[in-house]
């Protein structure tokens, strides 16, 4: 059924936007940042605050959330994260979980433990009929934005000078530095963009899911699943994986509710056994 398919795609797209920043930090910078959800939460709560307290239009909140989360990411990268690039993965896990705990307590302190929601503007709510299926306007909006993002990210990575510098910096930082590439700056910018994308995802998410202080923990598993099924070497991998998972989750719960909960996890385990590098990864590059 088309409705279910589109619901699933939209949900998958949302997961993708939330997770794509993690793909950037993990895949490109080889940094396990479990605090990724914190940046998404920052974007989400900024949107909630701006809309509820200041009456800022929703569409303006989206770029604001991106900028806010990116700025937050930049500050944290410069002050804290950069000390951890050469530490072990386990240290990175410990550190980023610590950040998650801090952010949960801070948001709780500022906003309380309630679920926060926003009311979307009228032109984004409602449904329309398409080929006999009833489709939510907002879900289409999410799909469109995500589609746009995937294309631009892919182009930015493969076609621009920044993209090739970044890939050079990741492949061999020392040589890249020797070639005159400012690796430190590239990493900082990349980290900021990754965080900004999470913030944007959070802002978009306010229309579908609700936010409470435990958000970074609650969604961490989903981020990790998307990244690991999709592989971290490309942008399109996690994108397709997110859609696959979103559709499988929604359709599973619709058609076979009794086993709906298992579907995502089972797919993940099976994929990782068959293709440890992820479903859509290029053959191991290193």
């Amino acid at each position, binding site marked *: 059924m088309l*409705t*279910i398919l589109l*619901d*699933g795609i939209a*949900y998958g797209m949302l997961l993708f936007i939330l997770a794509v920043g993690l793909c950037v930090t993990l895949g490109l910078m080889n940094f396990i940042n479990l605090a990724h959800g914190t940046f998404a939460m920052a974007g989400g709560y900024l949107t909630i605050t701006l809309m*509820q307290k200041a009456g800022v239009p929703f569409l303006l909140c989206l770029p604001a959330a991106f900028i806010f989360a990116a700025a937050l990411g930049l500050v944290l990268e410069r002050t804290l994260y950069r000390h951890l690039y050469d530490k072990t993965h386990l240290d990175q896990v410990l550190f980023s979980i610590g950040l998650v705990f801090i952010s*949960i307590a801070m948001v*709780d302190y500022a906003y*309380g*433990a*309630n*679920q*926060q*929601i926003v*009311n979307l503007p009228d032109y984004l*709510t*409602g*449904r329309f009929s398409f080929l006999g299926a*009833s489709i*939510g306007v*907002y879900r289409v909006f999410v799909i469109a934005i995500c589609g746009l993002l995937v294309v631009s990210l892919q182009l930015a990575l493969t076609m621009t000078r920044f993209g090739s510098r970044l890939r050079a910096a990741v492949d061999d930082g020392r040589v890249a530095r020797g070639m005159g590439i400012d690796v430190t700056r590239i990493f900082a910018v990349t980290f900021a963009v990754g965080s900004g994308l999470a913030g944007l995802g959070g802002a978009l998410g306010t229309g*579908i*899911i*609700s936010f*409470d*202080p*435990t958000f970074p923990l*609650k*969604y961490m598993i989903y981020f990790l699943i998307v990244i690991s099924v999709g592989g971290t070497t490309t942008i399109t991998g996690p994108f397709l994986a997110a859609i696959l998972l979103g559709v499988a*989750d*929604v*359709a*599973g*719960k*619709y058609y076979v*509710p009794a086993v*709906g*909960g298992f579907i995502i996890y089972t797919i993940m385990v099976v994929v990782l056994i068959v293709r440890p590098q992820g479903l859509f990864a290029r053959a191991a590059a290193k």
Partner: protein
Amino acid sequence: MFRRQILKSIGVAGLALATGVSAACAQEVVKVGLILPMTGPSASTGRQIEAGARLWMAQNGSTVAGKKIELIIKDDTGAADQSKRLATELVVNDKVAFLGGFGLTPLALSVGPVATQAKVPAVIMAAGTSTIVASSPYFVRTSFTLPQNTAPMAQWSAANGIKTVVTLVSDYGPGLDSEKAFKAEFEAKGGKVLESLRAPLMNPEFAAFLQKAKDLKPDALFLFVPSGQGASLMKQVGERELAKSGIKIIGTGDVTDDDQLNGMGDALIGMITSHNYSAAHDSPENKAYVAAFLKANNNMRPNFMSVGGFDGMAAIYKALEKTKGDTDGTKLVEAMKGLAWVSPRGPMSIDPATRDVTQNVYVREVKKVDGQLYNVEFATIANVKGSN
């Protein structure tokens, strides 16, 4: 080997000591230990109950029957083993005269054996599965049970032209209780439940369930999710335009939680729920309660969890008055049996047979009052028993 033997003999020695310890000691301070989820997904429940309990103490003083009441709050993070450990520590170390709180059913159930063994009354201020009170003779409930709050909704539906219903509940004790109670009552009155959907307890995305409900085209969709999760469910209900396609949205008041209702948006106007408490309940007691609560808690609106805490303290105070300050657990439980008083929610009492709460259940409609959304009560079913 040698070390292990030492350990064992130490264990024997320790046990010998333990049996000699007596718990009797005169206390001027009566301690009440509240075990609540203060962090994690159910944190809002803990905050409301704590605020309700503190408000009772602010209004009624901290001395009762010559004893000073001391409140101890512990965070169990919503994990049952923590509830149990904290209960044990409160009983053993702090020598509390009362346990209280318990945000979710498993958390309450895990404490049951401790209360029984230590003979300490445990006042359930939130958890709503009907079977809990029967699991320990020291449980007393001041919140509500799901069957209690659900059955009136089924009666109202059957009486108001609703023939077919799809139920959607969270897949855990209270949800299943609610599903069962609704189905039994509704079908007894001639209605038909087309499908009983169950969503996982920690579920961010309801699209699949709501679409399924929509495709079944019932007259009404009955909803239950625990306190604190109503917002995300109702947002998706709104997005799917179930009301527009002619499906009436009904549920227990947990969904239109006062704590969040105002933020849920005008899409909810007209939704019918049944519940034991609404911040809009029209009585002098409640007006005073809401005003004081808002003032003390930075304008957080009290919800049904808060009255659970407030009335929990009420029961504790009244029991102590009755025993004249005697803190013997068995006597206190006896004293609580049959207590009756007028709460902000309306008249309520503790059923002497079951130790469960008996109270009025109200059928309410979401309406805009002075620019804010409220559950406005329009029908009362008096003295509904919590469990049989």
